[in-house]
């Protein structure tokens, strides 16, 4: 059924054109076509295409790698900051723990439990300049001291 309709539609359009009467036109001449510009060899085109593709992919990979590096750095920084905060907190806690142990009431309590007592009276000796050698004490030998030594075999260290 469809070919019949197509044939029916085609028939009126196929009438031969009538040429107008008049002077004859110069005959048509055939020109040689313009020489075609020679395109790059196929291999080069392919290489360029591959290079472009690789460049795009490489750039994308570089961006991804850079992003990963930055992220890793951020994680490291965050971890370090967390460690610093923890260390500072620990240092503070230890400092306070030391202060609690060194508090005067604690020291006094420990001293008392260890048997220490406050002196009833403090006797102060005059200050001595340690830069100046002490003088040799002036002693007076007792009677017969030179002849009789107090050292015994037990108090004199044995020489080896």
């Amino acid at each position, binding site marked *: 059924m469809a070919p019949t309709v197509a044939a029916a539609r085609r028939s009126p359009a196929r009438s031969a054109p009538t040429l107008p009467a008049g002077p004859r036109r110069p005959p048509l001449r055939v020109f040689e076509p313009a020489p075609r510009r020679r395109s790059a060899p196929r291999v080069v085109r392919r290489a360029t295409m591959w290079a472009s593709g690789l460049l795009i992919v490489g750039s994308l990979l570089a961006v991804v790698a850079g992003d990963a590096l930055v992220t890793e750095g951020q994680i490291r920084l965050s971890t370090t900051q967390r460690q610093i905060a923890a260390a500072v907190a620990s240092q*503070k806690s230890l400092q306070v723990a030391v*202060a609690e142990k060194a508090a005067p*009431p604690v020291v006094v309590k420990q001293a008392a439990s260890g048997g220490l007592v406050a002196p009833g009276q403090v006797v*102060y000796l*005059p200050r*001595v300049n340690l830069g100046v050698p002490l003088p040799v004490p002036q002693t007076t030998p007792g009677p017969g001291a030179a002849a009789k030594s107090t050292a015994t075999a037990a108090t004199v260290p044995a020489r080896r």
Partner: protein
Amino acid sequence: MRLVLVIVFLALVVQLINVQEVSHRRYASLSASQLTQTLSVPAVRGGIYDRNGEVLAESVTRQTVVADPFLITRPAAIADALAPVLGVPADRLRAQLTEHSGYVPLAHRVPDAVATKVTSLNLAGINLVPEPQRVVPDGQLASPVVGTVKWDGSGASGLEYQYESLLAGRAGSKSLMQTPDGVALPGNSSSVAARPGTGIELTMDESVQYVAEQALAAEIAASHAFSGTAVVMDVKTGDILAMADLQATAGSATTGAPAAGAAASTVAATSGPAATTGAAAATTASPSASTSGPTRVSPVVSLPSGIEEAPSNTAVTQVYEPGSVFKLVTFSAALAAGVITPSQQLQVPAALPMGTYTFHDAEQHPSERLSASTVLAQSSNIGTIEVAQALGKDRLLAQIGNLGFGKATGLDFPGESRGLVPGAAAWTGTSIGSTPIGQDDAVTAQQLLDAYNSVANGGVLVQPRLVRATVNSSGAVTATPASVARRVIDPATDAQLVSMLEGVVSSGTGTSAAIDGYTVAGKTGTAQIPDPNHLGYISGAYVGTFAGFAPAEHPVLSAVVVLDHPTPIYGGAVAAPVFSTIMAYALHHYGIPTTAAATASASSAAIGASGTVSVPSGATTEGP
């Protein structure tokens, strides 16, 4: 149909332009507000240290256990798991875990061990939030001076309040994007770092403070006093080395302390925040405060039973009538004006009528002749009034102001009182009798000490100070400026005063202040206490005081001791021994050579060539 499609398409285009171009800021901010969460990052509060770097107050980070009931599906099981760890009844936890809220604190500032256990339980909806806590490792030591903090960590009283801007630092913030279910989104976060607070290094010495409190507490208990104050000061620099403020526990059986709510004998002249926060300070800083409070006080108890730290620093915030210890003002003015000399003889009658009042000495005596030095040494009221009458009102009032009474000391402490000194306008017929003997004016213990310290310092009044340096978060120490000083007594008069004050301790009313090996100068005071409800004084109620310095030849340290309602009543009997105990320790602590050693230096240097031990010269210049 086509028209409808075109209209719809145009509407979409218009809305698109509206969303993307016209109102994009509003929609962007709306989105950010839903996704972005800004967290406050608290700054670490600066510490408070003594002059040797010992910690008096420090902030540490503790963990607060917080629940998000919206994420909790099995509240009963979680409550049962948490109850033994937190030490909280399971029923209470169960109720908290079923609250209609996303943030329910279960336990504030738990110890590190508890926080670790909670973490190991790995319970959904249970989180740990860091929270700073103030720790006071020395227990209650010097708490009226150091002060306390509130729940939010800000200063409530004392130096914690006064130096709030320095100690607090500046909180930071952290903004981060997160999904509605709380998962943090990578990137797009911004943060402002918190600036840690700056610490302060006090002039106080932990050891001297401890000894001062112990000696004062023992005397309060022994004399059944209501309260007591002791302050130790470096003569040259004005550094406060110790500032003890103690009181008998209300209703204590071992002391004479009044029941809670009874009127104190000293006049509360505080006007600053310390007055309003004092009660809170006492509550928050009590040893029984749990570890979850804003301040964790060391459980070490250093004071004897029945004695506790005063709620505020009474040495600078409360005034009282000083009594005879104020006679220093009268004698310094009279000596400077040439009205008297130390050896000048005065006729001292048994009584001195003046208007409707008759003035007596503490002990009855017939009319007698006493030298000016003896009048001061024996603390004769009548003799002192005679000196004041010869001096005159104007010169007496001028010297009161000159020595710093009626003015702020410059200590930079909150709620400091300037004192109540009658001016010329309030002068009455009996003022010339009561003012020179310290029964008409009200002063703080610190003002008294400043006056005696100026005598010890060769007549130069040096402003007291409590803070000697600031310590930044890196530990760098920056010294505060030296105290301001001004001459208030000429050197010749000062030398005479020192000699007269030595006489008070060697042969006068202050013999109990003597210290073996050192010469001590000072003055006793025994003052009646004004009746707050009636004109006149409370019968049988006194305040005992001793103020002085040592060694008298080369003063290094000065101190004042005040006892409220003691028995016996005399300053020479109750305050002077405390002065002696504290001063003896401080002199030994700082290695101040004994007077005998200083005297021996000259003679030993002369005979040093003969082979005996020589004492280095200049050893007396050392101090704290």
